[in-house]
């Protein structure tokens, strides 16, 4: 059999000269990887699949080879390994060489849209068809709430129909979130209470605003109670996180520009985001706008103003909430918060400020739960494996409630716990803070009892 060209850079370069890498891949970023292997034990897909091609080092190697033309970007095997990645970026935290794995992965994905049917459908319907369009989102949100009001989830569970329906598990085990019809959108300005300390914008988001509207309200409350004027742009925007993380570069670029416009001219000290995936994406707008010479600089400047909600509040100096929530709570680190934004302590510090709340640590709290953007839709089997680990660790921790900070994680873990028959609600850190500040909105029974 003819040997494939070996990636023996060192000698090959002497023989054939320096290769010219593919446009669209920043070779300097790729070459930061020195293939030492320190990332391997931290990779959730390597733990499940055991193949080097499904490890961070293996993926970097493949991207390097593809960029140099040794393998094709649209090779189905290249695609399989590249799209089998959660893009959770745990490898970035483990990497002493400072490889920006997330950025490289997004570039690689942008070079090769996936060919399989499931992936293409998710992209067409969700990433490009639904999320960027506020009116369609509203209709979808209405349908979602109507289905819940009609007790459709229970019906699906009892009949067992969820097992055969596409997306059945998500429909049958919805998160505890808001069941009530969505009320008024957040006001354009929520005034600071007490002494005014800052003026911030709040991203209400796409999925977040339809499924977790109450979380947005409680985030605004927590900010206002801490002396912030909270500005919500009139134009509802999706920041493009799911699109960019999946490599839909064009959609991501367009949504980034639109999001920046929505917040411009408002004299804001910070743009606060309560969804980890969105925050991480918005902190990297320079990357999303890399092909837009005019906006790239502005993207960088905008990114510097973006803060995760608990990151912002803890840095500002959180006023202690007064209401007691007597619960044992474990915090699940969303990947795009702990690995993507390096925000690890702040959500825990915020939770510890709540009277009566006991914070416990679960094992592997910084491992991906398998939600990973749209991954649980495109790769359900691998996603389920990661979720099984997560559920086991949650049960071991003895927590009565899980706090997290990203809609995707909350949806996924919530579904997993319900299916396992556990009455352990999953809520946002801002939900707990909001309740402790006196929000009277709907609460899961566990929380109601803990506040009685």
């Amino acid at each position, binding site marked *: 059999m003819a040997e494939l060209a070996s990636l023996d850079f060192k000698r090959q370069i002497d023989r054939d000269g320096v290769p010219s890498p593919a446009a669209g891949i920043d070779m300097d970023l790729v070459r930061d990887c020195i293939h030492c*292997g*320190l990332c391997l*034990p931290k990779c959730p897909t390597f733990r499940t699949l055991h193949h080097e091609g499904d490890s961070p080092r293996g993926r970097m190697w493949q991207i390097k080879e593809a960029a140099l033309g040794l393998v094709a970007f649209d090779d189905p095997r290249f695609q399989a390994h590249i799209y089998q990645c959660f893009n959770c970026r745990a490898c970035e935290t483990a990497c002493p060489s400072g490889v920006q794995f997330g950025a490289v992965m997004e570039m690689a994905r942008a070079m090769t849209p996936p060919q399989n049917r499931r992936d293409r459908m998710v992209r067409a319907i969700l990433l490009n068809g639904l999320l960027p369009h506020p009116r369609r989102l509203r209709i979808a949100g209405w349908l979602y709430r109507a289905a819940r009001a009609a007790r459709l989830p229970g019906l699906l569970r009892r009949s067992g129909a969820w097992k055969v329906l596409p997306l059945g598990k998500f429909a049958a085990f919805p998160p505890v979130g808001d069941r009530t019809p969505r009320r008024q959108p957040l006001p354009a300005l929520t005034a600071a209470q007490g002494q005014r300390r800052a003026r911030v914008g709040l991203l209400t988001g796409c999925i977040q605003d339809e499924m977790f509207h109450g979380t947005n309200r409680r985030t605004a409350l927590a900010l206002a109670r801490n002396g912030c004027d909270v500005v919500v742009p009139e134009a509802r925007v999706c920041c493009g996180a799911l699109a960019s993380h999946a490599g839909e570069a064009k959609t991501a670029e367009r949504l980034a520009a639109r999001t920046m416009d929505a917040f411009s001219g408002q004299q804001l000290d910070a743009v606060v985001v309560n969804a980890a995936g969105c925050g991480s994406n918005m902190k990297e707008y320079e990357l999303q706008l890399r092909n837009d010479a005019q906006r790239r600089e502005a993207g960088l400047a905008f990114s510097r103003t973006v803060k995760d909600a608990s990151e912002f509040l803890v840095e500002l100096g959180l006023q202690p909430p007064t209401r007691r929530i007597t619960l044992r709570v474990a915090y699940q680190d969303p990947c795009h918060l702990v690995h993507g934004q390096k925000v690890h302590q702040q959500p825990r510090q915020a939770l510890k400020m709540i009277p009566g709340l006991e914070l416990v640590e679960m094992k592997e709290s910084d491992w991906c739960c398998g939600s990973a953007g749209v991954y649980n839709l495109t790769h359900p089997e691998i996603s389920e494996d990661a979720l099984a680990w997560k559920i086991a660790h949650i049960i071991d921790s003895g927590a009565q409630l899980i706090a997290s900070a990203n809609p995707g994680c909350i949806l996924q873990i919530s579904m997993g716990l319900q299916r396992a028959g556990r009455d352990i609600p999953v809520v946002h850190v801002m939900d707990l803070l909001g309740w402790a500040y006196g929000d009277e909105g709907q609460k899961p029974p566990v929380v109601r009892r803990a506040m009685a």
Partner: protein
Amino acid sequence: MDAADREQLLARLRGVVGERYAFADPYEMRLYQYDASPETALPDIVVIPGTAADVARVVKICADAQVPITARSAASSLAGGTVPVEHGVVITFARMDRILEIDPDNQRAVVEPGVVNLALSQALKPLGYYYVPDPSSQGACTIGGNVGTNAGGPHTLLYGVTVNHVTGLELALPSGALVQVGGRKAAAASGYDLTGLFVGSEGTMGIATKIWVKIQPLPPVQKTLMAVYPDVETASNAVSAIVRSGILPAAIEMMDKLSIQAIEAASHAGYPLDAGAVLLLEVDGIPELVDELGERMAKACRESGATEVRVAKDEAERQALWKGRKGAFSAMGRLSPDFYVMDGVVPRTRLPETLAKIDAISARTGFKICNVFHAGDGNLHPLVLFDAFKPGQYEAVLRIGDEILKLCADAGGSVTGEHGIGLEKRENIRYVFSDDDLEVMDRIRRVFDPHGLMNPGKVFPGEVLEGSAPSRAPDHASRRAAAGIGGDDVWV
């Protein structure tokens, strides 16, 4: 291997581990051509067995087919130890990562080869124990790989390297046998110390499938000191002075200016960027002892020219200093796209002159060379920074490496301290062993691996020409054949 042979072998291997865990797709083979060294070579087939019995079957099938076998787990080897230079079958241990038994009262644990070094210590921590050898790559490297290279680490100065902590092995041999050496519940010394023979044999005699290790109670207190020196020479003289003062710390590590820059860029560990060199020292034991030793050590540092001695004030600071040190190699990615690391050893007393000579090589050749290493052992890790995309640089760097290792050997040291000889240093090994020495080692190896199928092309010098038929015999074979030693059945 031709396509038909490969298909046939693949089918047999799939019969053992299933389709998913034996594969030969050329695309996938490219992902098993590398480790953490700069060398690469493609395997023909990769197998990911799940049990020791499967490993034994796989090894037997390969040996019967006369196909080379290379073991690989984390592939964090810095010496090309897991690169399948003569192709054939690569066996990886990604699935064999279970801790089989922990018996604190008898101070032992039993693990599979794919268990990550740090994962073992983390599992032992709640019980108040740890596994001592702590290679800097311990977050990734596996106990199996540690056994292969007889790995060291900063804390082996006082406590000894892997061979001092492994009490038994279960081995898959080319004959198909699964044998156990050592691994008795109590320390036993009957018969040959075969465990000692296998540790450090780099997979050239058999493959460890189960490992018995000694575990130690965690020291009650660990104190870490950082001593800042104006230059590398003063710091390296200080190493001997500290030992002369009557204290043998658990670890003495040195980092030069360039390394400190890389480390600080990577992890903000807290090393001073303006230091000429830094020594990182650690003592452990009961609090009273540690306080006393710490003070004496600080005194010895100051007397040997340290401008500042800082004691890590809490566990967080201590961890940060160690994290920086242990991430140093990988942190070189911050300074340079590529690096080449050596693993030479010199007597402690020859450190200053050796480092000066390395510095002179750097000045002469124009390549930056960092030094971050186990100073207490005299185990140097010069890192030559280069750019593989610049024609000619790699070859030049290999020549520099050769020169540095020669220098270490001439100083009375060796060409490897802990990374193994692997592919990288198999020619340099001649600096420390004569042909007769090598011949004895080769004869021992062939008792277990008569046809030279286990990790061929490693440890022993020998030409392997790219694209030519594999030559498994070390190049002193012809001389031995002429002398009438061995037969055709042995010398393939």
